[in-house]
């Protein structure tokens, strides 16, 4: 892996991009900067506009307003083939009449890669996604996951400066997926200049692979930050609940470092990055975010909530215990080995002061 000169250091910038279908905006005033060489994960509910954002970068859809830049070029009016992006689309869109190898070679040939190199790079890309043995198959002769891997190989083979991945691993099993994640990671280390915009609905994928995560909701960007920031100190309840699971408790502020949840007074260490303790802050309503795995059974923590266990679900490595407290369900993920209450039992859960994050909304 040596040459990929065209790719050097080109970030992506959305400037007030609005995309509309039949008058309804499915991407609205979208502002986002992905820095050169960065891996940005795009998270958001189904239909929130993630694919649309990618399509705007690839040039498949023209924004009604706003500009898209790649590096220092304004590409808004550029045709897709001049943008030097590689994309894996959600439905793969493999060329049905070409064998796997030809599918992967397509982009290379389109870019006039010397003939000698094509075969080698095709083999390399297929090997990377574990599809080396399927080069002579037609797409319709592959399973869903195999097709997806070919689509990924096809985009990787051209080593574009910008890689747009729309749920590229959604059809793969956990093991293969983590293998592929490792491959992508390795690739990114080898080609640190490649900028990656990555749509996923898998938390672990987003958290482990991405440098930063952008959370979208209903055509708009909600929050951007490093995985750590979003996970530990989200600003809004949407991002909080979308990145990882979260208990969002409606509380009222009760003075510096204190909130009230039902009858219980809770201590919180961080007032939340953007919390504005304005004049009426003393009694203002707020939301407290506590991650389920930060909640332990029993009353050992700083903040103790008491209620009735309403559900216990075994999830492999953990049990998820739901406890109803003051009319709200508080969920705790406890290690599988911990002993869990029975449904209907009275139960206490607790969490440390620094694990409660006060949100803006």
């Amino acid at each position, binding site marked *: 892996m040596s040459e990929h000169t065209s790719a050097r250091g080109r970030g992506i910038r959305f400037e007030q991009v609005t995309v509309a279908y039949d008058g309804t905006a499915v991407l609205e005033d979208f502002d986002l900067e992905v820095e050169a060489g960065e891996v940005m994960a795009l998270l958001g509910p189904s239909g929130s506009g993630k694919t649309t954002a990618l399509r705007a970068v690839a*040039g498949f859809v023209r924004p009604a307003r706003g500009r898209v830049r790649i590096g220092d070029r304004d590409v808004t*009016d*550029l*045709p*897709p083939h001049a943008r030097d992006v590689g994309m894996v689309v959600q439905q793969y869109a493999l060329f049905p009449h070409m064998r796997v190898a030809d599918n992967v070679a397509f982009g290379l040939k389109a870019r006039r890669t010397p003939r000698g190199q094509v075969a080698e790079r095709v083999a390399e890309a297929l090997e990377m996604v574990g599809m080396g043995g399927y080069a002579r198959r037609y797409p319709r002769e592959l399973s869903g996951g195999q097709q997806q891997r070919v689509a990924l190989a096809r985009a990787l083979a051209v080593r574009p400066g910008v890689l747009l991945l729309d749920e590229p691993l959604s059809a793969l099993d956990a093991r293969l997926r983590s293998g592929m994640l490792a491959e992508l990671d390795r690739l990114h280390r080898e080609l640190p200049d490649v900028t990656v915009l990555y749509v996923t609905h898998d938390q672990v994928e987003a958290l482990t692979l991405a440098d930063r995560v952008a959370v979208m909701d209903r055509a708009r960007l909600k929050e951007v930050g490093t995985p750590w920031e979003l996970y530990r100190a989200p600003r809004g309840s949407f991002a909080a609940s979308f990145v990882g699971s979260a208990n969002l408790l409606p509380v009222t502020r009760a003075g510096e470092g204190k909130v009230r949840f039902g009858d219980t007074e809770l201590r919180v260490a961080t007032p939340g990055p953007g919390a504005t303790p304005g004049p009426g802050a003393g009694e203002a309503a707020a939301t407290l975010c506590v991650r389920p795995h930060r909640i332990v059974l029993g009353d050992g923590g700083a903040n103790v909530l008491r209620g009735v266990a309403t559900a216990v679900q075994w999830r492999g490595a953990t049990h998820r215990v739901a406890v109803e407290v003051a009319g709200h369900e508080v969920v705790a993920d406890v290690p599988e080995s911990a002993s869990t209450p029975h449904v209907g039992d009275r139960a206490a859960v607790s969490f440390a002061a620094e694990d409660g994050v006060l949100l803006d909304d």
Partner: protein
Amino acid sequence: MLVHTRKGRWAVWAVFAVVFVPLFALPLLVIATASLSTNWSGALPSGPTGVHYASATRGESLAALSVSLQTALLASVAALAVGTWAALSAASLGRRGRRLMDALFMLPVAVPSVVVGLAVLVAYSRPPVLLNGTRWIVMLAHTVLVTAFAYQSVSAALARLDPAYAQAAASLGARPWYVLWRVKLPLLLPSLTAAAGLCFALSMGELSATMMLYPPDWMPLPVQIFAATDRGSLFTGSALAVVLMAATSLVLLAVSRIRTRASYR
């Protein structure tokens, strides 16, 4: 969506015009102009006039037009039915069976239409089936002549049809005919309408076989156009041709209005 730059698009359109205008637009324009001229002796026609249309919309011509429309309508519907049926059943045959069907349904266009006309006339001028002298023989011949087109279009489209749709439908409990009616045919609709239009237009313009067959009370318009031009009345013939084409395009327009959501574009 293929050419993204404005300049490129204009270039493509220019090339399109260069091919399209002399090859398709001008001949039609000439006919249209001729239909409005009194004579055309030099490079350009002279004497704009509407008299040719007056005679082209006379009772007899209108009757011929209606004959043509009825014939074409019936022939294209029949051809579409037979052709689609044949294409569908051919698709479920093995490779060799399909080849055979292809060849059989191709035959009518492989026979010079003069011969089709004569052969049909010979075959149906003798008992037990006496069709000569009736309008049915014209419709029969037209159907024979255009079925191949319906068959071809539909079977080409079938080859591209994704089997996943039919499978999904079947798994939802749809019987084969229901799958056919609600899934396959709608998905084939773009091709079906294309085929119907093709058949209709062809039948509207059919002359060689019709000449051999048409009964006195069933004279299609092309025969009349031929009769007019054949005696040198080019301009009246042109006017009749314009009427023929106008009627055809109207019907084609209507057919193309059969919107189908099976097309992606």
